[in-house]
C-alpha cells in the first residue's frame, strides 16, 4: 500500500476511535451539561483527533522505513490521486450534509442544543471516515 493509502487507513481508525468515544460520552451523560461545555469538550476531541492522526502517520512512516529498510514517504499526487481525492471528497461532502440536516431536524424537534453539538461533531467525524474509506475503495477498484 502507498503512503496515501496508509494515511487513509490511519484517518479511518482515528475517526472510528474518536467517534466511538464521542458516542459513549454522549450516551453516558455528557450531553446533560450546557452546550458551551459540550462544545469545548468536543473541540478538545477534535484537537486530539488531529494530533493522533499526525503522530500515527509519522509513527507509521518510521516503522515502515525500519521494516522495509527504505524511505517511506508521500509521493507527489498525480492525476489518479487527484481524481480519487475529488470523488472521496464528494462522498465526504454528502456525509457532512446529512449531518447538517440531521442537526437541523434535532433542533427543530426540540432537542437540546448539546445534542445538536454532538450531531455536528459526529457529522464531521463521519465525513472524515467516509472520505478515508472512499479513498481506500477507489484505490482498489480504479
Amino acid at each position, binding site marked *: 500500500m502507498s503512503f496515501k493509502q496508509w494515511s487513509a487507513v490511519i484517518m479511518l481508525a482515528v475517526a472510528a476511535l474518536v467517534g466511538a468515544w464521542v458516542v459513549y460520552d454522549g450516551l453516558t451523560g455528557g450531553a446533560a451539561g450546557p452546550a458551551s461545555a459540550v462544545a469545548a469538550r468536543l473541540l478538545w476531541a477534535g484537537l486530539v483527533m488531529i494530533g493522533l492522526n499526525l503522530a500515527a502517520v509519522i509513527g507509521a512512516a518510521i516503522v515502515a522505513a525500519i521494516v522495509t529498510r527504505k524511505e517511506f514517504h508521500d509521493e507527489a499526487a498525480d*492525476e*489518479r*490521486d487527484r*481524481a*480519487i481525492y475529488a*470523488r472521496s471528497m464528494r462522498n465526504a461532502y454528502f456525509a457532512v450534509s446529512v449531518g447538517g440536516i440531521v442537526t437541523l431536524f434535532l433542533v427543530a424537534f426540540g432537542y437540546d442544543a448539546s445534542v445538536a453539538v454532538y450531531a455536528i461533531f459526529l457529522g464531521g467525524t463521519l465525513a472524515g471516515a467516509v472520505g478515508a474509506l472512499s479513498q481506500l475503495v477507489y*484505490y482498489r*477498484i*480504479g
Partner: protein
Amino acid sequence: MGKGKPQIVNTIRTLRFHAGEMTQAALAEKVGVTRQTIVAIEQGRYSPSLEVAFRIAEVFGRPLTDVFQYQAEGA
C-alpha cells in the same frame, strides 16, 4: 476510472517486456505518475487522461493506438 468491464485495453505489459523488461517504477518515472497509477492502468482499472496516454506511447516510441485500444461493447 470507470464502472463495469473496462473497454480500453492496453499492451503496456508487452511493451515493457520488449523495452528490456522496463520496470513499472521506471515507466512511472518517465511518464511522471506514481507506480500505483501505472499498475492500475496496466490492469485496466484506470483509464488515463489523453496526455498521460500520449506520454506512455512516447516512452515506447509507438503511436497511441499501438498502446491503447478501444473495444466497443459487444465487439
